[in-house]
């Protein structure tokens, strides 16, 4: 099962990860701690981590003075759109955006066309991602066609290395089916991820149901639409022992439920998206669909709860839910436009700018914790999130925590432009990204 992963960790398939690269002058921060050190990378692996290293003749030098050198970030939740919606994004453009955002691995969501519910479709994505600028792992669908009726062939997909399954885009509506899926998944040792949205409560809602939706005359999705499914799946997890990972939690109620469940020892985990700790439902006041997303932007109380979840460990990861949409779709009237926002290039900077947490904690949320959750870390034969030490695969990001930059939608690597942060000045920027020894981003510029 780990064969696929092993191929990638050597970087041999690419070739550009050969030779020596020296990351000089930075402060290495990983889950073992923080220390001033240079990092020497040879043939795709870290070989030396110490102060005052000199580059070998012919080595590439990546200057990292004043920067943090960390394991590459891992995104649990990316929509690469290929196959099926290449006008919005491709694996190539999406992974370029990921690399620019400091990510060395992303988990591709299965709501492509065709959906990732078969061995063939998953193999196809792996093939398409062979030369990608970040490692692409896949989340398989829980049900065939993501239709919520029959279980997808999870064992077959698990044999290909798939560790996370979700019908994201939708939640599994039937409690009975979800319970069966959990039991089956537990036997396989894989995790089910849930996009919590009860369709009968969400019914046609286009934004959070509350004071703003009432004033703007837009149908709303009440917080309960998310919370009833969170509560249900906690109960099912408790009953079956199966692990449930909650995608993009957005309400205080959901977070409370998860906090209490974890205190009891129920095996649930959770991720949150940057837009849910930086934006509120009032952003929809101008009816600009760039602010339309599922789950929707919520009021300040929920934003505060999401931040608290990141601070106290209720949330295990920050995941972007990068969701590109072609510009003409985001020009539709608010209720007709598809929900979703770009996220790969802004997640790190938003976390640094808006969250009052030490960088070690942020890196845990962005790198090694998500890596462990989806099985991309060394413990599962993967190559991401692990300590920067001799012998480790060289998947690194170099971050300048004080650089300021302004978000320009036309300058992003994505094929789409739907970022809600256009014009916002952020602090913190990825300077270099190294993928399996290859510098794919140097001085904030993609190398291919």
């Amino acid at each position, binding site marked *: 099962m780990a064969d696929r992963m092993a191929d990638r960790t050597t970087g041999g398939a690419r070739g550009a990860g050969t030779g020596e690269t020296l990351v000089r002058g930075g402060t290495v921060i990983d889950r073992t701690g923080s220390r001033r050190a240079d990092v020497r990378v040879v043939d795709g692996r870290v070989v030396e981590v110490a102060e005052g290293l000199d580059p070998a003749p012919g080595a590439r030098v990546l200057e990292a003075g004043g920067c943090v050198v960390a394991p590459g970030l891992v995104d649990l939740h990316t929509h690469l759109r290929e196959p099926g919606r290449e006008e919005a994004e491709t694996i190539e453009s999406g992974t370029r955006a990921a690399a620019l955002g400091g990510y060395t691995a992303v988990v591709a969501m299965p709501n492509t066309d065709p959906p990732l519910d078969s061995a063939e479709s998953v193999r196809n994505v792996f093939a398409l991602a062979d030369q990608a600028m970040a490692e692409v792992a896949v989340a398989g669908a829980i049900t065939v066609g993501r239709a919520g009726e029959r279980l997808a062939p999870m064992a077959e997909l698990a044999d290909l290395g798939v560790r996370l399954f979700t019908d994201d885009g939708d939640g599994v509506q039937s409690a009975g089916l979800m319970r069966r899926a959990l039991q089956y998944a537990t036997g396989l040792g894989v995790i089910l991820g849930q996009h919590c949205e009860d369709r009968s409560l969400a019914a046609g809602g286009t934004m959070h149901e509350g004071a703003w939706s009432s004033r*703007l005359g837009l149908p709303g999705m009440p917080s309960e639409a998310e919370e009833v499914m969170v509560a249900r799946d906690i109960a099912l997890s408790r009953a079956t022992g199966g692990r449930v990972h909650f995608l993009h939690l957005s309400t205080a109620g959901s977070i409370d439920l998860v906090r209490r469940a974890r205190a009891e020892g129920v095996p649930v985990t959770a991720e949150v998206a940057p837009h849910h700790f930086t934006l509120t439902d009032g952003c929809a006041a101008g009816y600009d669909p760039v602010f339309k997303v599922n789950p929707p932007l919520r009021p300040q109380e929920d934003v505060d709860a999401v931040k608290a979840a990141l601070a106290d460990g209720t949330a295990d990861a920050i995941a972007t839910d990068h969701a590109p949409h072609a510009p003409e779709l985001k020009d539709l*009237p608010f209720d007709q436009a598809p929900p979703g926002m770009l996220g790969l290039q802004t997640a790190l900077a938003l976390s640094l700018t808006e969250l009052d947490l030490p960088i070690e904690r942020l890196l845990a949320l962005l790198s090694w914790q998500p890596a462990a959750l989806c099985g991309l870390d060394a413990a599962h034969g993967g190559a991401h999130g692990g300590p920067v030490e001799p012998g480790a695969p060289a998947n690194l990001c170099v971050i300048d925590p004080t650089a300021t930059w302004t978000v320009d939608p036309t300058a992003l690597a994505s094929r789409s432009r739907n970022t809600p942060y256009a014009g916002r000045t952020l602090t913190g920027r990825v300077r270099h990204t190294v993928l399996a020894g290859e510098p794919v981003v140097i001085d904030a510029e993609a190398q291919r």
Partner: protein
Amino acid sequence: MSPFPTHLLSMDDLDAAAIAEVLRVTDSFAEVGRRANPKVPTLRGRTVATLFFEDSTRTRMSFETAAKRMSADVLSFSAGSSSVKKGESLRDTIETIQAIGMDAVIIRHSSSGVPARVAEWVDHCAVVNAGDGWHQHPTQALLDLYTVRQSLGGGDEGTDAFDGLRVTIVGDIRHSRVARSQITAYAALGAEVTLVAPATLLPPSLEGWPIAGVSHDLDAVLGDTDVISLLRLQAERGSGAYVPTMREYSAGYALTARRALQLSPEAIILHPGPMVRGVEIASEVAELPSARITDQVGNGVAVRMAVLFLLLGQGTREVESHG
């Protein structure tokens, strides 16, 4: 007095002074409407486009009549006609209109917020919201205000008569753009607005709404109101699912003949139309002298002429050098 806004997207765009200005200017246009030849050359050479994505012959004709009476050229685009092809994006349609050269575009759409978005895309073109989804229908509220002012005998008094006026709005508030506009409009002039509806037909949140109160019991408030404004159950916007049956709705919330008797003698009855006789209003009640429904329709043209005049006649063109 602050300048009139560039667009009329919502009653929130108009403060009390601007509303008073609209009503006062409407008086002049009402006089024009009474003439044998109800036409003035005020907007000659200007082009006004109506862009109706939702069917509404009455409102569209009212706007078009208003524009024509001011000698403007009128172009009509309606959904389903060949000029608005299915699948052509809204933005492309707006760009076509801009290229032809419009001074004003009057939009009705089933999605809230469309006029606001269009206003961001156009240049030197005034946007008038003729109704967007559940959100706003400002000219309807303005003509309701004008009708009430007429009934109160407020010609020269302007809008003082609205201060403390008790207004009751009954019906499907949740899905009603007319209600949202009316509430803002009446409250801006100092009236006290009470909403009456079953709980499922109220908006999810009334936080920040400038209302005096909410009631689920129509009979309890009937005797204490000066104006009663009835809303139609918006079946096409899905309101039917919010009440068990039409019969149950009518039993609780229709203005029947019996209920009309409980109104004070000076109270006036308004309905934005079209009426569904027997559901929210009894046929015989619609014919009472206190029901000002036909006045509302008649006033619509004059109010819309005033709005177009204030949007287009206020220095929106480039100023030529002037001796």
